[in-house]
């Protein structure tokens, strides 16, 4: 969500999703996590957290994170997996998107999530052969799930987004320049050199 915020603030059209089965946040004890269904509004999540030990939630940053998320979107959403019931906000929340998969770029923050997304796209290629022609560039920027790493990771993602959108804009303006897609491998390499501790993954998928 930190990356969602940073990208949104930078002017990009963004949607964010979880890839697991539910939203899991630290609970009062290590063996009692707070589990919410996707689609549960952040305000309700905050209400529940407020009923628990606030000291712990303040200390582990969950309370601040939830408050921040309220400013970004209404509720956490689940990746629109093929053939699974939607757990997301209504389309009216995203007038800029033509459909739930209307992306040019997807960036995940864990290799596990990258695999889920890429496998979902491949599954769509298999199960919906006539519907899968639109390309989408999928990246993974590996970020550890804790507050400081999330801040640094979001900046790294913003860097990648800027490099990609600059190259894309340039290829539309200057027809003598190499096409955008030809520059992607060099962009990734340059980005990786600048961010050596966040190993990147890439795949060109279709939906």
């Amino acid at each position, binding site marked *: 969500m930190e990356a969602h915020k940073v990208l949104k603030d930078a002017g990009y059209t963004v949607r964010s999703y979880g890839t697991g089965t539910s939203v899991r946040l630290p609970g009062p004890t290590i063996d009692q996590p707070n589990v919410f269904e996707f689609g549960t509004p952040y305000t309700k999540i905050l209400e529940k957290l407020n009923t628990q030990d606030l000291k712990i939630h303040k200390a582990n940053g969950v309370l601040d994170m939830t408050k921040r998320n309220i400013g970004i979107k209404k509720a956490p959403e689940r990746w629109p997996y093929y053939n699974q019931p939607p757990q997301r906000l209504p389309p009216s929340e995203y007038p800029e998107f033509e459909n739930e998969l209307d992306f040019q770029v997807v960036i995940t923050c864990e290799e596990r999530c990258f695999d889920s997304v890429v496998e979902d796209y*491949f599954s769509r290629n298999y199960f919906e052969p006539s519907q899968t022609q639109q390309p989408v560039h999928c990246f993974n920027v590996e970020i550890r799930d804790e507050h400081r790493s999330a801040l640094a990771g979001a900046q790294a993602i913003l860097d990648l987004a800027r490099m990609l959108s600059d190259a894309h804009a340039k290829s539309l303006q200057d027809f003598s320049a190499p096409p955008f*897609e030809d520059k992607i491998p060099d962009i990734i390499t340059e980005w990786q050199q600048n961010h050596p501790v966040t190993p990147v993954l890439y795949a060109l998928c279709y939906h």
Partner: protein
Amino acid sequence: MTTELDSKQLDQLKEAEKLAFDNPSFFEQILDTTISICLGTPCNEFRLQYQCLSFIHKAFFEKKIGSFELRSQQSVKVIQLLDYLIIRNEERSPNYLIIQKCIDILNATYDLIFMQMVQNPNEDEWERLSDVRDYLLSQWPSSYPLQPYNPETDLSRSIACKTSLIKLMGKIIQVQLPASSSVNDIEHDISVSMIKSNHPFLLNSNLSSQAQNLLDNLFAVLNDDVLLPTGIFTTIMSTMMTLFKSRPKFLSNKFIMFILAYESQLKIEPRFEREEKLKMKLTKRFNDRVDKCLISILLNKGFLAKDPGLRTRFENKFNYLLDKARDERQRGILNVDDDDDDPEVKEIKKQKIEAIQRNNMLFYNESKIARSHDYKSIYNLIKPNDQLTEFDMSTIPTDILVSMVVTALQKVSVAKLVKGLTIVFDRYKDLTTNTDSAFQGLYIPSTNEGSLKRKRTDDDDKDGARTRMKTDVGNETSNEIDDAYSDDELKGEFLVPVPREFSFNNKKEHLGFIISNFIKLSAQKVKQNKSNLDSSMQQNALDKLAISSWNDESWVKILSRLATRGLANDELANCMRKSIFNYFKDDMRNRIDEVIEWLNEEYYSEIRDGTGIQPLRDGHYMTYCAFTLDNLIPFLESSDRKIFIRLMSELPYLDKSLISKIRSLCKDPVRSKLGFQSLLYLIMFRPPVLHDCLGLLTDMLNDTSSDDALKKECSTYLKKYSPQ
């Protein structure tokens, strides 16, 4: 630059687009108008054309026109537009984005047009569409529409058009191969199964065989030794996934085994990118990850449930990829020095690199076309973004420059120098003869084409001598013919001097030119002549001709007959054989048809004067058969079963020495299946070599160096086919 008029037109087009999508009853009318505007727009008016294409792209590719019937009815109209933008503008530096959109549009409409042709046959339109399709397919996997550099670098260029082309290939394969089940869902499964047997021009078998070739072509690129860029790799995989569902019987096994066998570590980096180690390492990492995702799908979605053995192999591969990725992370993503630690991997890659270097790829920029009209473009053979290209050589004092050139000439190999000079020569030739890149003509239907005339342009007046071609429409007067030719007017009587007789070396050199010209012909797409002339001629034995109409294999027929029956001098004939063989050697797998044609000719010409069917042991047939097998067998993969068995079945004569070459395949644990399959084939279908095959099996059984698995396999075959 966009003028006020253009921007007004652009706004009008955008409004029309909105109207068509909001109210599909206007779609037909707006489509017709848009196509005629696009056809009437000169190619350098890029933005207007792009806007027209965007509308068509949205309607068909993005399916903004939701009605399948409406899209289908209107689909045939795009043929004319695609023909204009792709075929007619071929020589006029096509715009990259325009071509990409065209490929996507063809992809989105190919099945719809096909269905229209099944229901309402129109042979002319189908021919036109086939020309566009075949032209685009012939560009795969080049850097089209970008100018080429060299084959390996070009694999990583023009990725967007390549991926669109892969998707188009997928669509063609899907349409031209029969559907697996009865056609219930027309919208999602249009195929050759819909063609009725009395259709006037759509032939099920021809279309299916083209589709099968395309599928083989995609697998060939996947199995190639050179590392594929991730964009291309994942697009082929995504297309295969689609075909895996829609046409399973044509690719399931191949696809599954490819996923299992893929090993990025064994792929070699494109020659001019080997130094970009991080980029190459990342590409391998990405491709491995995609492979891992596919394995995960096959394991988790029940694809392998019926075969526990295969499932175990996939699980092992999955774990291997996980371990590999973990090791890589632990070593650090930027650590590129310890790649390829395994000496076995190094050895395999070394062999592959040596094999590829025979392709004579010596310079990064091997394009035969200069990118602009200056000396730098003509002479530049290095990477365009190399800092050296910015260096001004004229700043170096002449004496130093001379010694640099002399040293370079002393050190460079003759082959490299000749190749470099040939490229420069070709660029000069192209610049002085080819058409102008700025096409300003209007579209004229094929029946009424504008005439091509040479004329001097304003630019030429400025810089003197250069002449260009322009396309002019209508009747131009004769005074526009280039007056540069007036210098060539002959005054007085002129006698042509008697040519000097060629020395032997001259003959050899010119024979080399002839051979290379014929080999160049092999790369050209030949349109098949459908006339009945061929068959009617063949009915009369006296009129039998080897070539009555030119086809893809005619060049090899001519060259092989020249070598065997056409040249009196043995040295020249051998020189020709060597050239033919060297050409085949570069890509034996994809040239197997021609190899078979040639060796059959060698065999025939050897035995036609004798009495028996046995060629000479040290004759040309046996020598080149042995060379062919020696050059093919080490590079065969398990997936090359068809190619190899075909070669072994179609070679006209085999003896013990040739069959014994299969031994290395049988002994290789990875490819032993291929070796035994080919032996089995020979045992069953070529009785004359049965004893030689059984002899080889016995030899391997008795060979002390054979391992237990090999002996067991040999013994199984011997028990079955030679029980005594």
